[in-house]
């Protein structure tokens, strides 16, 4: 038996809740079992005992990046079809999941969390400074076009190819793209600093730009030397305010 398109779509939709009940013992196991449930219901419609056994094997430890986990979910369904048909041992599903979750977590974290999302975040910030809220909407649209299409592609590839999905993921070249996105995001952060100074509401604008640039350069130096984020942020606010107070005393105005 093969799973219907609507069942597959149902499983994919449920995978969006993968981390709903993230816990310390099984991590994303409850989410994975929730996502795979419609497929198991279809595969073991007349056999509650086999369905229960299948659910139990998906309650084992699972932790992956929530986007790239879509490939593992698709692959698990691929294997579950074979298990239900008696062509594979149930253990194959668990081996598949445990083998892929580590590498795919690393790929997902490296591309989405530490490259694409920061890049789009910085792009949204720059867009907001340049054109207002439409800049945020454009950046959000770009992110989700990439995120959702990759998530669906990985799910489909996992379901169709099972173990062979690894080759497809390798061909995407995500680590190289991530490296380019990170340096681009760093440049966007630099541009944002100058623009934030100009849009800070400080008059004259050149003073706002100067203070923001000093905050950026000094902040980068402090953080590079191991300063903690929140205390350093307070120090930045205090330094700017105190400098302005001192200047106002000297010049008698502000």
């Amino acid at each position, binding site marked *: 038996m093969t799973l219907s398109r609507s069942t597959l779509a149902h499983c994919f939709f449920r995978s969006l809740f993968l981390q709903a009940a993230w816990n310390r013992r099984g991590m994303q196991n*409850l989410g994975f079992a929730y996502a795979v449930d419609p497929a198991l219901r279809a595969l073991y419609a007349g056999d509650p005992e086999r369905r229960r056994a299948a659910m139990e094997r998906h309650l084992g430890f699972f932790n992956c990046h929530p986007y790239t986990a879509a490939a593992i979910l698709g692959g698990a369904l691929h294997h579950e079809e074979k298990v239900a048909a008696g062509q594979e041992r149930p253990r194959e599903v668990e081996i598949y999941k445990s083998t892929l979750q580590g590498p795919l977590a690393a790929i997902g974290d490296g591309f989405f969390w530490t490259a694409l999302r920061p890049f789009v975040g910085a792009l949204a910030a720059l867009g907001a400074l340049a054109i207002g809220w439409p800049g945020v909407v454009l950046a959000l649209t770009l992110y989700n076009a990439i995120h959702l299409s990759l998530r669906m592609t990985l799910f489909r590839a996992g379901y169709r190819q099972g173990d062979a999905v690894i080759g497809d993921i390798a061909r995407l070249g995500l680590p190289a793209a991530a490296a380019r996105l990170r340096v681009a995001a760093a440049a966007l952060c630099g541009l944002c600093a100058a623009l934030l100074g100009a849009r800070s509401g400080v008059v004259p604008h050149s003073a706002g730009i100067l203070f923001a640039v000093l905050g950026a350069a000094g902040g980068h130096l402090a953080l590079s030397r191991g300063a903690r984020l929140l205390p350093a942020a307070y120090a930045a606010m205090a330094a700017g305010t105190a400098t302005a107070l001192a200047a106002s005393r000297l010049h008698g105005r502000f």
Partner: protein
Amino acid sequence: MTYLVLGVVAGLAAVERKGFLQAMLARPVVLGTLAGLALGDPVAGLFVGVPLELLWLGAVNLGASLPVHEALGTAVITGATVIAARALAAAGFTGPAVLPAIAVLSVALGAPMALVGRSAERMAERWNDRLLERAHEALATGSSAGMAQVNLLGLALPFGVGLVLAPAGAAIAGSIVSALLLRAPAALGPLGMGWAVFAGFACASGARALRDLRAPVYFHAALAAGALLAGSAALAGGGG
């Protein structure tokens, strides 16, 4: 009504941030705008959302590590900014110096809520351990469907945390900010400079979060280029 709207927005953001979808809707630049829009002041929301996005650009959920709860921090800071801006406008405070001064004080008072949110998230993980036990119990009694549905119960606590803590934090921070500025209006200008330095610092935090050896070079080069361009534009535009 303001507090209820803020609570619902913050609760939904807390759910979207980890439990469902993760489409960047809970990121500060988006949430700040949405929360500001919901509270009737999208300009203030965007004003604080942009630097907060860069400040917390590195707040990512890698493996089992827990980053600060940037969504709760943003909701509190945005709410406090809007509430204080309303109070000051009612008292006749207007002009470009007001919003930066409110924003810097709101960040100072509201940012620790991101740490409180992280503690609440740890609590939610412990609560989810109990959900796992419930799932095993449901499976043992033969209820496979009931076992699967347990997963959705994990969304309740993050939603509740946002629903309660965001309005409470915003109300306290907003009233302190407005009281401070009403008593010391002369501080508006200097606090604006504090905001400018903080905004620059936030960008540096964003650049530091990008774990790449070349990132500092690109950051400083773009910073210099941006300063030259923005500085020239400011001087040429007469506002300089």
